[in-house]
Structures are given as structure tokens and as C-alpha cells.
């Protein structure tokens, strides 16, 4: 596979920029589009300088017309282009729902495979600093429900590099990638030898453990890893942490075998619980063999309300490392008299000072 030079250490945002740069330089048919794609902020640094480098006919500043631009992208791909579209907030993709769900996801199937529409739609999920009801939604369940879309949620720079470079080289299907805004400025080490470009969107074990399985998405993988450290240090509980990577195409064998081993399951997701990722993993386990479970499943995610803007309410709305530890202890039948600080999320990601 054709891959660019990969740094040993990079921020999440910088890894995305490397991938966008690679898409444009390795394939003259790639085009980028989105609102603000070519401005001085460059989608939080993920497209900076590309309009100058590749020209405004390949880095297309979009009108505020998400549905049309999505259909436009589909149209360009029918004639051989590879469109990469960015929604600076995932919430804006709901304006394009008709084109994504009724057209893009079905164009290959309903015409009997005559067309292979391709493209990547990047959606940025906001959190904290007052993002509120329309800047903080995380729509993985909604899109994973629809056949014809690959939905990925890379949680690290490595996951970005593996998945984006793979899809850019492949360029034959619709991929929706949910990028968490709070991951953007985090620095990641990249083990270049470990990168897997053959089958990147598989779920993977990020931490081996034996007492409980935590299946997580996006930034909740980092939270799960922090919870696992706390559980081991304070309670001697060994948690196995699995990054789902793809919510539409999870590795069900990997998840099932881990739960079979530990007998206990906690799901840590970035979105709402009802009809969500936790529900789907529960279905997978229960359809295959519910007797592997030694305790009831728990799912951590957003409370069943719109996202409030003010910080006090927002802290109650999101799950924290404290919630994860508390849920894990409950599953394991332990008293939770020693818990991490519930507000530590803000400290941990304190580099993020907004405004957007």
C-alpha cells in the first residue's frame, strides 16, 4: 500500500492533516470540501494550507448547503473523484440526512452494483466549553443503523493514520468518520511498526485484562484506559479495554471472546444509551450466548437529555472516569468507597479552552 512518511509523535489533528495532504498529493482525483475548509483556521488545523497548495478547484469552499454538498460529493464520485467532506460539527450532518441515508448509502445497492460511489465524510463531535445542544451530538448509532455506510471512530493518531490512509487508498465506499474535538490537541506516540494497513477498522484490544471487559468508542477509550488504571491500582481489578474502532462493522468475535473470558461487560460510549452502541453489543452477546455473562451489563454514555450548555449541568450530562469506575465496581460486586474525581475530565483535557 502507498503510504506517506509517518511521524513518531503527532497530535491527532496533525495526523489528520498528514492524511488529507496525502489524499490530495497521492491521488489527483481527490477533492476536499466543507465550510471553512480553506480559511485561516483550516478545520482546527486539519486542512491548513491545502487550498493554497492544491488550488480552490480541489479544495472546495462550500456554501452552507450541507444536503446539496453531500449529493454533489456523490455526483463527483460517480465520475471518478474521491470527495472528502468535513462537517465542523457532526450536528450539521443532520441537514444532509436525505443525501446520506436515502442516496449515498444506497446508490451502489439499488442500482445492482453498477455504480460504486465513494467518499469520506468527516464529522467533528464537540464536547465541553459550552458546545450545547447543537454542537455536541455524536451520531454513530444513527449512521451505523443504515446499511451501506462504514462508520469509524478513531481514538488515537495511530487509528487515524491506519484508517484514513487505508480508505484513501481504497477509495471505493462511503466512510463516515467521527472525530472527537477533545482528541485534536492530544499528542500521541506512533509505533510505525505496529500500524496495520491491511485490516485497520477492526476492533482491537488496547489493554489486556481478566476481570471485566470495557468496550469503548472514540475518546471513551482513553477514559476507559484511565478507569482501568484506577481499578487495578486501588482494587486489584484487571480490566480488558477494547476499542471498537468501527461501530458499523465491529469485530464481534473479538468482543464476544473477551466477554466470554471475563464474564463481565461495561460499554463506554460517547452518545446516548437508548438504541445505542451498548444496546448493539448487548444484542451481539445475548444472541450468541448470554450464559457467558456472570453479571448484568452496564452502559455508560450521555444522559437522556439534550446536551446542556452550562458547565455545571454539562458535568452531570456526560459520563466521567468516575462513572466508569463506579459502574465497573458495581458489575464486579465491589463497594465503591474510593472513587476518582468526577471532574477530572476537565483537568485531563485542560488544554482545550475553546472557543469551538
Amino acid at each position, binding site marked *: 500500500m502507498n503510504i506517506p512518511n509517518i511521524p513518531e509523535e503527532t497530535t491527532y489533528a496533525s495526523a489528520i492533516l498528514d492524511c488529507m495532504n496525502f489524499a490530495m498529493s497521492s491521488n489527483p482525483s481527490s477533492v476536499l470540501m466543507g465550510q471553512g475548509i480553506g480559511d485561516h483556521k483550516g478545520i482546527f488545523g486539519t486542512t491548513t494550507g491545502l487550498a493554497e497548495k492544491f488550488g480552490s478547484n480541489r479544495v472546495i469552499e462550500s456554501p452552507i448547503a450541507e444536503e446539496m454538498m453531500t449529493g454533489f460529493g456523490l455526483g463527483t464520485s460517480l*465520475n471518478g473523484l474521491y470527495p472528502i467532506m468535513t462537517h465542523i460539527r457532526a450536528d450539521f450532518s443532520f441537514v444532509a440526512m436525505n443525501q446520506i441515508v436515502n442516496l449515498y448509502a444506497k446508490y*451502489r445497492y439499488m442500482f445492482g452494483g453498477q455504480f460504486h460511489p465513494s467518499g469520506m465524510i468527516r464529522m467533528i463531535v464537540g464536547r465541553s466549553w459550552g458546545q450545547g445542544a447543537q454542537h455536541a451530538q455524536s451520531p454513530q448509532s444513527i449512521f451505523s443503523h443504515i446499511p451501506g455506510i462504514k462508520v469509524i471512530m478513531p481514538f488515537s493518531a495511530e487509528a487515524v493514520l491506519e484508517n484514513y490512509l487505508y480508505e484513501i487508498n481504497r477509495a471505493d465506499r462511503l466512510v463516515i468518520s467521527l472525530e472527537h474535538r477533545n482528541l485534536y490537541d492530544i499528542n500521541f506516540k506512533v509505533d510505525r511498526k505496529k500500524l496495520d494497513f491491511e485490516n485497520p477498522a477492526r476492533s482491537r484490544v488496547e489493554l489486556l485484562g481478566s476481570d471485566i471487559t470495557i468496550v469503548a468508542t472514540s475518546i471513551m477509550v482513553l477514559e476507559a484506559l484511565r478507569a482501568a488504571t484506577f481499578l487495578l491500582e486501588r482494587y486489584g481489578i484487571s480490566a480488558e479495554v477494547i476499542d471498537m474502532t468501527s461501530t458499523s462493522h465491529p469485530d464481534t468475535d473479538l468482543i464476544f471472546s473477551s466477554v466470554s473470558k471475563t464474564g463481565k461487560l461495561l460499554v463506554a460510549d460517547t452518545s446516548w444509551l437508548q438504541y445505542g452502541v451498548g444496546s448493539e453489543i448487548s444484542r451481539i452477546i445475548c444472541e450468541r450466548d448470554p450464559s457467558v455473562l456472570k453479571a448484568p451489563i452496564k452502559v455508560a454514555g450521555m444522559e437522556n437529555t439534550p446536551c446542556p450548555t452550562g458547565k455545571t449541568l454539562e458535568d452531570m450530562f456526560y459520563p466521567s472516569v468516575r462513572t466508569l469506575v463506579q459502574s465497573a465496581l458495581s458489575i464486579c460486586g465491589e463497594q465503591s468507597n474510593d472513587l476518582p474525581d468526577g471532574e477530572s475530565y476537565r483537568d485531563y483535557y485542560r488544554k482545550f479552552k475553546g472557543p469551538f
Partner: protein
Amino acid sequence: MKSREELLIHAAFIRQVEERIVEIYPTDLIQSPLHLSIGQESLAVGVCAHLSKQDQVFTTYRSHAYYLAKGGNVPAFFAELMGRSTGCCKGKGGSMHLADSEVNFMGTSAIVASTLPHAVGAAYANKLKGNDNLVVCVFGDGAADAGIYHESINFASLMKLPLVFVVEDNDLAVHSRKSERQAFELEIHAKSYGLSTHSLENTQDPKVVSDFMNSIYADVKSTQRPAWVRLRAFRYREHVGTGEDFDVGYRSRDEFAEWSAKDPLIGLEISEAEQARINSEIQSAIDFGISSPFPTLEDLYLDVI
């Protein structure tokens, strides 16, 4: 270039195809909603007459006439309506989702106005690649109710794309008149987006439509700017289904009588030999559909992603 006689025969062929569909529909060989083009064949034949095979056409769920006018495979058309694996979409599309990539008949949609941005994107790709292909997007006046119609025309004009928008204006969105839906006048409004606009009232004759479209295509190719075209249309059958509906209240038989009096396909003289050829082509396509296999469970899962 095709003569008027050839265009009329092509339009008559399409009408006879659909009249056979009306005949066989009660047998349940075709198990899906149908939106017949009867009465509008001349528009499809006229729009496609001067397009090359490489030129691309996007249309709506009322697409039988355009599929056939663009040169779509006829046996695969009937097989598709019958849900067979030999259909143009392997039995997964049916009447509302016809496509034939061999002749660049690029896809149809059951969601009003949803193919406009595809045409804009396709034209953008053509321009970027520097080929000379034309893109035509056909839709009804109901599409102009939708925001994406305006978004698409705006962007096509802004980007200066070689593309032709064709509005088939029958004054109806299913059963409601433009006056109930639109506070603007279609052509005046379209012109405000800065593209050339054209309007034709009497579209019954395919030669008249094809001449009209030919000069627009030449203009679009030389200026590399989009055009907007309004073609008056009249569907003879109900919105969906094979019956007539002049007695349900939203339109009158008088309107039909006035329009169809100018329809050259009614009473068109076709030579015996030509009619025999048409009969044979249609019958063999129907037979092909009937004798074709149905898709399998394996096919159900094919081409999802």
C-alpha cells in the same frame, strides 16, 4: 441526426412499451409502484436525441421514457420491473430506480429533487477532468419546492458547469398545483441565479423538443455555463399506477383533450413492417423477463458496501 419520422417512431415505441405494461400490470408480474411516462415520451426523446452515449442523464422515479430514450437495454428493463436477476439493477431497483451505466443513464430517485446535486457533482468532475461530456438533469416542477433545487442551481451557476437542468412542468406535485406551492414564477426565479433560461410550451412533437434542446446544448458547450430549461408536460395517467384520473377532481378531461389534440403519436401511421418490428422487440423483452431467474439469498447481500 435523426429525422422527425425516426424520433416519432422512437417515441411511439416507448408509448407502446408502457401500454404493454398497463396490460400486464394486473397479472402481478410487476410488483411495485409505477409512474408512467405516457404523454411525455416526446420530452424524453427530444431531450436525449442530441446527447452522445458519454453524456449523462439523471432523472426521477418517472423514468421509463428517459431510460428507453437514452438507449437503455430493453430486455433488462422488463426484467428489472419483474424483479429478476437479469434486470438492469439485478432486481434491486425496479421501476423507481432504473439505471443503465452502459449508456450513462446515471440513476433515478424516488425522493423529489434528490438527483440535482448528483448532476452538479458529475458536471464538476467532468470540468475538473477536462472532458467534453454534458450532464442533463430532469425533474418536475415539484422539485422547485425543495431547498436542494435552489442550492444545486446556485452552485452550478457559481461554478460555471456544463450542465442542463430540465424542468418537466405539468403544474402538479402529485395532485397539487404550483399556485398552492410556489410564491415565485419558475423561470424568473431561475434566471436570478445567473444562468440562461429557456421555456417551451408545446412539447408534443419530439422533433420540436430535440431542435430546441440542440441549440441549448450547443450554447452550454460553447459557454461552459449551465442552462435551465422548462418543458411544459402533461401526464396522461394517474400519478402512480396505470389508470386514468380525470374524474377525481384535481384536473379535467378538457385539459387532456386540449393537450392531446396536438399529440402526433395519437393516430400516428406506422408501417406494417415497422409495427411488426416494434411488437417483436417488446414481446421478446417481456419474454426475457418472464423466463429470467429470480435473485437468490446470496444476491440479497451483494453490493451493500
